[in-house]
């Protein structure tokens, strides 16, 4: 039981919302790479309570991922070097997607790639499928070609987003890398070429050395860093985007009122691009912090590994919290 939930008896808030035209029962989404294709957790928790599920990062061709050690826990954090292991988009569409759609939550396909062409071809296949949304992953730090390279530079990010946008009418989320030198510029660039939603942050690039061997812990040298340790960094970046990209504004329903970001009202004529916040969220209070900062929805990832019930706890906690505020 998260602290405080017990004391907040009373009515429960309706957390339902629309993101890019898609109806979510609540703003809680399982983050890509931490929830498989949804069914992996269906024997321990009620997966249908989630607002949405992001698939494991998908590429056009199957990938076997990185060699060597893939996981290293650090104080309040987790380093991973999975390397986008996945069965390929055609396999996903044929074998995983139908079962994923039966689970109930909004199905979001996380699309990655190496070359521009593989992103586009992958997007074409997903566009013809029944996935509800596409999350364009230009931020995986664990592959040598592609992935994060596309998300570090505004021009490269715009190029891949524009190319994918051209071949799909599905709502397009672009998942940003916190490793970009100027995150706001990357965000603005992808919004300008048609991103419907932004999600941030993917993992931070980290490094670990094995002092007994003097060699890097990971075969791929660097690894993605996630978990509670990154939460303040992620939250700061979400706020930077909300302040720095005119089209991105808080969803009224969840943000703190009066919000320091309410100033965005003057940009009314702009297309509204919601922001999905993620990074280290491990309890409903963390989720509320992101939502009150202005995120329209949140994703939970690493915290699920330690406690799959965190999903239900966050949803119940937010229902009670917003119920009391209304």
């Amino acid at each position: 039981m998260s602290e405080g939930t017990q004391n907040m008896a009373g009515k429960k808030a309706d957390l339902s919302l629309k993101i890019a035209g898609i109806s979510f029962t609540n703003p809680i989404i399982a983050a890509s790479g931490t929830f498989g294709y949804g069914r992996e957790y269906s024997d321990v928790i009620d997966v249908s309570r989630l607002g949405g599920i992001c698939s494991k990062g998908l590429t056009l061709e199957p990938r076997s991922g990185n060699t060597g050690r893939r996981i290293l826990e650090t104080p309040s954090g987790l380093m991973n070097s999975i390397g986008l292991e996945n069965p390929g988009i055609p396999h996903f569409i044929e074998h995983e997607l139908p079962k994923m759609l039966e689970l109930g939550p909004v199905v979001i396909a996380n699309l990655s790639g190496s070359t521009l062409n593989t992103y586009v071809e992958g997007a074409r296949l997903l566009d013809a499928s029944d996935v509800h949304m596409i999350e364009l992953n230009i931020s995986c730090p664990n592959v040598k070609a592609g992935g994060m390279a596309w998300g570090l530079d505004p021009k490269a990010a715009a190029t891949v987003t524009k190319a994918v946008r051209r071949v799909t009418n599905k709502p397009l989320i672009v998942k940003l890398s916190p490793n970009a030198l100027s995150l706001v510029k990357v965000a603005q660039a992808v919004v300008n070429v048609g991103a419907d939603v932004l999600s941030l942050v993917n993992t931070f690039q980290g490094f670990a050395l094995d002092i007994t061997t003097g060699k890097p812990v990971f075969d791929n040298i660097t690894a993605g860093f996630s978990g509670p340790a990154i939460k303040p960094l992620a939250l700061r970046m979400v706020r930077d985007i909300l302040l720095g990209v005119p089209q991105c504004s808080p969803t009224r329903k969840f943000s703190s009122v009066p919000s320091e970001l309410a100033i965005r009202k003057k940009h009314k004529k702009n297309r509204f691009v919601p922001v999905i916040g993620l990074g280290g969220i491990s309890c409903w209070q963390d989720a509320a912090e992101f939502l009150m900062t202005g995120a329209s929805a949140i994703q939970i990832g690493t915290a699920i590994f330690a406690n799959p019930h965190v999903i239900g706890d966050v949803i119940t906690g937010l229902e009670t919290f917003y119920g009391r505020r209304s």
Partner: protein
Amino acid sequence: MCSPYPKVACAATVESIQPVGTDVFSLVLVRQFTPVSTCGDRGIIPEPIPGQFFMLRARPSGVLLGRPISVYCYDDRTITFLILKKGKGTSELCSVSPGQQVDIIGPIGNCFLRPDSSEIEEVIKTAITPRTEESAELSVAVIGGGIGVAPVAGFALSLPPGTFDFYASFRTGTYGLDGIAAIAKNVIITTEDGSFGDRGMLSDVFNPELYDLVYACGPTPMLKYIQSACKNASRHPLVYLSLEQHMACGAGACLGCTIQTMHGNKRCCVDGPVFNAAEVIL
């Protein structure tokens, strides 16, 4: 294959914690649990099958993730684990007190196929070298190295008496062998310091030529030795190895614990932890 038993994620109460060897503790958890989450239920931890494991984390804990720990034994009321104090997560688990709670997810994974199972019969039948004496009983070896003795000892205790030889290899001293001497045909123990049984390692006492079926869990160098010794043995014994890997989710979702096999990557947590030695690349 083993039937996919239901899993739970809950907090279990510590019944007892006892040192049983150098840095090795026996942790007994009560199977009946009450909800600790807004969405948890009360219930009972499902009965594990020998070879399965749980993700365990002390409550409260300074670590993020549960640690994969094999089931040693269980009864209607409790489940017992042997835990080697190795890092922060296992140190916490070895320092819990009776009444305290431990976060658990499980039981997880496949199990050891029993010698009398139809699956084993099928595999033996289709083996490269067919057995000549069809009626003869399979000659079985169960091998544990260090803390790897826990899952194989639990498995051995579920086999009919007098149907297997039990090997246990330790650095120093022994643990986890309760009841084994009474049920195994032969018990062969080695310690590196000679403090118990024969001084030496498994390779000094194990003769792969004697067996049709081998089950093992232990350090990777020991498993590599068993894999290669049995591959070269004239009877081509069928070998099942229980493998260990760093894990995050224990649900098959994160792909952090993959094992390389002849058939591509397999997840140690849910495709294993028990693999046919002829298929894994160690």
